[in-house]
């Protein structure tokens, strides 16, 4: 394990976030009020949940660009179900959303596992297919607040112990991932497959199956977020969360998860998502047009990936020097 390096990377990111928040606070003290920070966390919750799902996919040397389309399709399906059967209890809807999302993740996973198609091609393709299906099933119509039942809309907003359910779900997912990644054989397998697929095969890990499992997890979380998203904003249409997959990948890259696979941590993904969430919420406060956000997340991706690459390259050079001295 390369614990010290990982720790330092997370500390740098945490420090950057702290500096950012303090800089905003000097001019707008209201931003750091606990209630506002709780709001920012709640607003970032969908990104945190999806970034964690994306993390395990990236750990296994894959990428899932279909998460936002999966989210939108699941959201539309549960919204239409709710419209047809307003009496359907929320736990049933949650279970349906998670299974439907997992099913779409499974499609990605099987294409990558069984047919060996490059992950980026698979998920670029399913991204457009899932989006297109939303149009086909909805006919391009919107489902608005008054067409959804009250219980359906209320669930993610319900306040328990001072925080909305949406925030609690994000916290639960973070804890779940700490256990999954750090304490289970599957979590180890994600790292092994990404770190060295050939070695993973020799240690008895089924590489394709592990990648497929990562896709199913990412899909299930996208499905869960789909319901939460639609219920929270009380609207469902074809283009919800358009382009959100890039923000999710950005959160992972900023959080120090190597796109080459095998390197990353739950804390990194969480901090990466929080960084983007804080930037997004701070822009209107410091009076910058929201149109800046796309360029900022783009620059953040580039800076983060360049930073990750230079830090890991320095390490490589040192090893080479040592080898030269030894020879």
């Amino acid at each position: 394990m390369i614990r010290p390096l990982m720790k330092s990377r997370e500390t740098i990111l945490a420090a950057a976030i702290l500096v950012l928040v303090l800089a905003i606070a000097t001019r707008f003290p209201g931003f750091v009020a606990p209630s506002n920070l709780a709001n920012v966390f709640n607003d970032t919750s969908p990104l945190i949940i999806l970034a964690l799902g994306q993390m395990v996919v990236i750990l296994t040397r894959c990428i899932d660009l279909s998460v936002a389309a999966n989210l939108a399709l699941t959201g539309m399906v549960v919204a239409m179900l709710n419209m047809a059967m307003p009496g359907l209890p929320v736990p049933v809807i949650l279970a349906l959303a998670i299974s439907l999302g997992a099913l779409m993740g499974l499609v990605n996973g099987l294409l990558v596992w069984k047919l060996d198609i490059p992950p980026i091609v698979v998920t670029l393709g399913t991204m457009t297919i899932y989006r297109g299906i939303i149009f086909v099933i909805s006919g391009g119509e919107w489902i608005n607040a008054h067409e959804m039942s009250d219980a359906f809309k209320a669930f993610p907003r319900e306040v328990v112990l001072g925080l909305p359910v949406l925030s609690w779900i994000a916290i639960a997912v973070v804890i779940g991932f700490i256990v999954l990644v750090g304490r289970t054989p599957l979590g180890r397998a994600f790292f092994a497959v990404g770190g060295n697929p050939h070695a993973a095969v020799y240690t008895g890990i089924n590489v394709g199956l592990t990648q497929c499992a990562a896709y199913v997890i990412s899909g299930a979380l996208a499905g869960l977020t789909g319901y939460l998203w639609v219920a929270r904003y009380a609207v469902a249409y074809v283009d919800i969360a358009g382009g959100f997959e890039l923000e999710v990948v950005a959160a992972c890259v900023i959080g120090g998860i190597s796109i080459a696979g095998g390197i990353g941590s739950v804390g990194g993904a969480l901090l990466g998502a929080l960084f983007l969430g804080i930037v997004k919420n701070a822009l209107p406060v410091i009076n910058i047009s929201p149109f800046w956000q796309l360029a900022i997340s783009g620059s953040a991706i580039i800076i983060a990936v360049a930073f990750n690459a230079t830090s890991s390259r320095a390490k490589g050079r040192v090893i080479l020097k040592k080898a030269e001295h030894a020879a």
Partner: protein
Amino acid sequence: MSLATPDTGAQGRQIPDRLKSPLQRFLVSWELLLLIVAVAVFTLNSFASPYFLDPWNLSDATFNFTEKAMIAFAMGLLIISGEIDLSVASIIALASTAMGFAVQMGADTPVLVMIGLGTGLLCGAFNGFLVTGFGLPSIVVTIGTMSLFRGISYIVLGDKAYTGYPSSFAFFGQGYVWWVISFEFVLFALLAIVFAVILHKTNFGRAVYVVGNNPVGALFSGIRVPRVKFALFLITGLMSGVAAICLTSRLGATRPSIAFGWELEVVTMVVLGGVNILGGSGSIPGVVIAAFVMGMVTFGFGLLNVPGIVMSIFIGLLLIAVIALPRIAGRILARRKA
């Protein structure tokens, strides 16, 4: 990413004593299969709609693919070399925004063209610098620049649009060289020939294949791998600039959402054209035929009143199917031999 590491399998490639004749090779090629599909689509379209075979109608149909195909030629070379550029559509947005900005400053057509091409080159150089200078994976870099370039357009334009392009600028996207032959189609044909010559007849083209098949081997045989890759990113940026000029001229306006989602269609076109997404193989004639197929299919759907988003389902399915089908077929053949 697994993009750069093609897995040739444990048994290695079987090399025959003698190459098959060019005709024999053509008969089993991906290009011939595509050509048959293209003819089939054309025939089906002419039965499906009585308006399809009108010369002006066919001329209109070419606008569906000429701009994307211009980028697809360069993207084809880039993918053969083992890299990818997902920022092409955003380069169009940025180049178009730059031209629109220049129009507000009172620039005329020649200046606009220079600005369009220059922005494309700059963006391509930026991508190429990040990929070759820092050794970063091109997928992540271009996902980042994809947000960055379009993001800059959004910062400049917000929810507004640039219009008021000079009338002489309209020629690039709306002009006709002779009868129904549009300027764009002529440019498309010329570029197809130029790229085919570059890829199939020059040392640089050979280098592109070598870099895609074996970057380390390429380095040891004296090819400056980073320089080749940088040049390819530069060319891809330039072609995006050319496409930006044509598209802006055709639409006569610039919005930050211009050419949204085109990167997917361009990559689909390249892959449909038989270019291996893992790098190392592919041809320009294949990409040209793929451009015709995709253009004809979307135009045919349009004549049948199929909404654009349903067409995108088809494009997504096509992208997965063209990669999956040869693999499934290969597996069945291998099983039969064994």
